[in-house]
């Protein structure tokens, strides 16, 4: 209890209803919010996965092939299928939000949100194509 409020005999108690731990199941928009928040866990997992890949490549051919075999184990594969869903969900929600976060002005006029989102999607396509080209040539 706060010392400064101790003088009153009938100390008021805050009335705060306790929210259910499952509050985010009540509406689709709440669920979308929590899923977006949870996507970060899968982002972190894939960073760990990427670092294991880097280590394996650095260690040599055998380690790299061992890594590829490990990545096709059912559990890892299943985890990465879920990860793909979440990182795509993250990317789409992120790019759709970009117009709210970025205010771009061109000759004093605000660039419409549509074009900002479109530019983000274009960048996504180009980066993905570049990565695929680098790895698959």
């Amino acid at each position: 209890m706060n010392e400064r409020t101790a003088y009153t005999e009938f100390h008021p108690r805050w009335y705060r209803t306790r929210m259910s731990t499952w509050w985010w199941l009540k509406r689709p928009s709440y669920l979308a919010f929590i899923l977006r928040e949870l996507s970060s866990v899968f982002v972190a997992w894939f960073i760990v996965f990427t670092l294991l890949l880097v280590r394996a490549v650095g260690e040599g051919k055998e380690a790299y092939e061992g890594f590829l075999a490990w990545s096709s184990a059912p559990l890892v594969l299943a985890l990465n299928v879920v990860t793909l869903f979440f990182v795509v969900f993250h990317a789409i929600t992120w790019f759709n939000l970009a117009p709210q976060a970025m205010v771009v002005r061109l000759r004093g006029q605000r660039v419409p949100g549509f074009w900002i989102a479109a530019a983000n999607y274009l960048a996504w396509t180009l980066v993905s194509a570049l990565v695929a080209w680098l790895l698959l040539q």
Partner: protein
Amino acid sequence: MAKRSIEPLLWLLFSAGGVLAALLLPILVLLFGLCFPLGWLAAPRHDHMLGVLRHPLTRLVLFILCTLSLFHWAHRFRYTLYDGLQAKHLNEVINLFCYGGAIVGSVVALCLLWQVP
């Protein structure tokens, strides 16, 4: 002098990490998580992977991707625990776990990327 809050910096890291993760991770997950393991596409040979990883620019991009994505995770996960589980009373433990994890992960990323022959 007014006490400066570190919050804007953390938000900046979160936001930059969000952009990089959104741009780079989907294609990487698609390729290394699904296409190569399932045999839809042939996985790159080891010498090719080594060639790609040897390039300083690849390592720089990967390092920035890892660091910022981890800080992105830390920031978002922190608020997931705050709001989702209403665990505000565990504030300090959560912060230590999230940002500490991101810092440790960044150091590990630096070491691993440095070690590539």
